[in-house]
């Protein structure tokens, strides 16, 4: 049997985690507050759309996805006090005015005939931007000091990837004509332009480069 008192390296040879990270406590908290605001707006919109969508399979998926994003909002709500923000509402904010406009335009389609626009906004624009923001945060924050945020990011990312796949497949099955391809592309471009102005879910620098 191995000697339990033999000194061992505190980090096993296969554990390559690094201490340095791009974000200090304040920056991590600011981003987390932006994520919570965005996840809240998304789950509220998905919940509202359930009644407006006639396609039964889409209606059921929106109900399930609504909860995924509510759960992410809850994870961020619980993380904020651990990042020294004892009043989580203070940091539960949009990154900027363009993000507010983005959510307004995202939630605009209501008519039963606009399922394509609803799904495009969520699955071709908003969720890919969540994946980008979360991936950047996950790969650039300190793997040791900010490990609780990374754990939540990993849970959220898993949902985002699976929901994106669900949404993209629903869209591909709904788009049947060249005109519908144009409709989808036009709505995507409209939203992407506003997101470009916003600089991403956490504002300029969401995925670095500032």
């Amino acid at each position, binding site marked *: 049997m191995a000697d339990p008192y033999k000194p061992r390296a505190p980090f096993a040879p296969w554990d390559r985690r690094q201490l340095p990270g791009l974000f200090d406590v304040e920056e991590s908290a600011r981003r987390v507050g932006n994520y919570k605001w965005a996840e809240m707006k998304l789950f509220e*919109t*998905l*919940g*509202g759309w359930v*009644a407006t969508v006639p396609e039964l399979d889409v*209606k059921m998926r*929106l*109900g399930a996805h609504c909860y995924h994003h509510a759960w992410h909002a809850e994870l961020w*709500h619980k993380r904020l006090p651990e990042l020294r923000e004892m009043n989580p509402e203070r940091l539960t904010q949009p990154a900027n005015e363009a993000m507010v406009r983005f959510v307004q335009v995202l939630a605009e389609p209501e008519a039963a005939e606009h399922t394509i626009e609803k799904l495009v906004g969520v699955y071709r624009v908003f969720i890919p931007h969540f994946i980008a923001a979360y991936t950047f945060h996950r790969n650039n924050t300190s793997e040791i000091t900010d490990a609780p945020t990374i754990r939540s990011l990993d849970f959220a990312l898993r949902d985002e990837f699976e929901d994106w796949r669900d949404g993209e497949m629903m869209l591909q099955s709904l788009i049947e004509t060249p005109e519908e391809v144009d409709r989808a592309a036009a709505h995507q471009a409209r939203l992407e332009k506003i997101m470009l102005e916003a600089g991403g879910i956490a504002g300029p620098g969401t995925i670095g480069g500032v």
Partner: protein
Amino acid sequence: MRKFFPVEELARDSRFTQINMRQAEADPRTAMVGPNAAKRAKVNRLTPARPDASEAARNLMHGIFVGEIQALEGAGRTCHDFELPDPKNGGATDTVPFALKLDMARQAWDESRHVEISVKLGDWMGSEIGQFAENTVLFEAACSTDPVMRLAGVNRALEGLAIDVFTTMKEFGEIAGDPYLEFCEDWMLADEVTHVKMGSDWLRKVTENDPERRAKALEFQSIVDRLFSFGGARSESEDSPIGLARRFRELAGFTTDEVDDIADVSLAALEARKAFSAAAMAEKP
């Protein structure tokens, strides 16, 4: 997207036919009085012994299916229709706490699974989507524009009805020797008890310092409960296909007095239904 979605616009595909409560109660095929009443069984409770048990069970399962769609829509709308409290205006009564919204999102997922389960059970029982009409009274009555009333309407009245329906259907599966049906109903019943408990807890919490508002909400719930007794379709009388699940209701936070009240309201609704049907039949040429 608007706040407060009108019931007439609930989106459905072409298989569905929506009707309201008045149309449902005037349907001569299910009237408790008039020429067809004699053809009805003496004991109306849904059991496998009824000669029309298969068709009645399919009908009830389709009712569960469309009811779950409306419950899904109701929970989703609660996530969307109400704002969070503004710290500058803490006393606003048209807002809901963040944690309540999270519970409603969870409920939306649960109801979405219930729709999935109901579709598969309907298929198992040999019915098709749209085979029976959809009565939209659940969404119409429960989805108040006041958040506390909505809690009472959706989580206590509508989900309470679901407890009664699932208990009846679970017993039906048990007696009929259908473990598939019994298994699924038992799982859905567990979720519904959770939803009613959520409603009971939130109602108590949100109206903690406002007894008048709580009383109004409970009064609203009583009105909705009367409606959801579907003219006696749910009561402790053997005349009603659906029983009242006392034990599960108590698990979900209803007091014995409250269950007694629902029992009384349901019986009164049964009598009112008979009178309504008689009047509706008399109006027909």
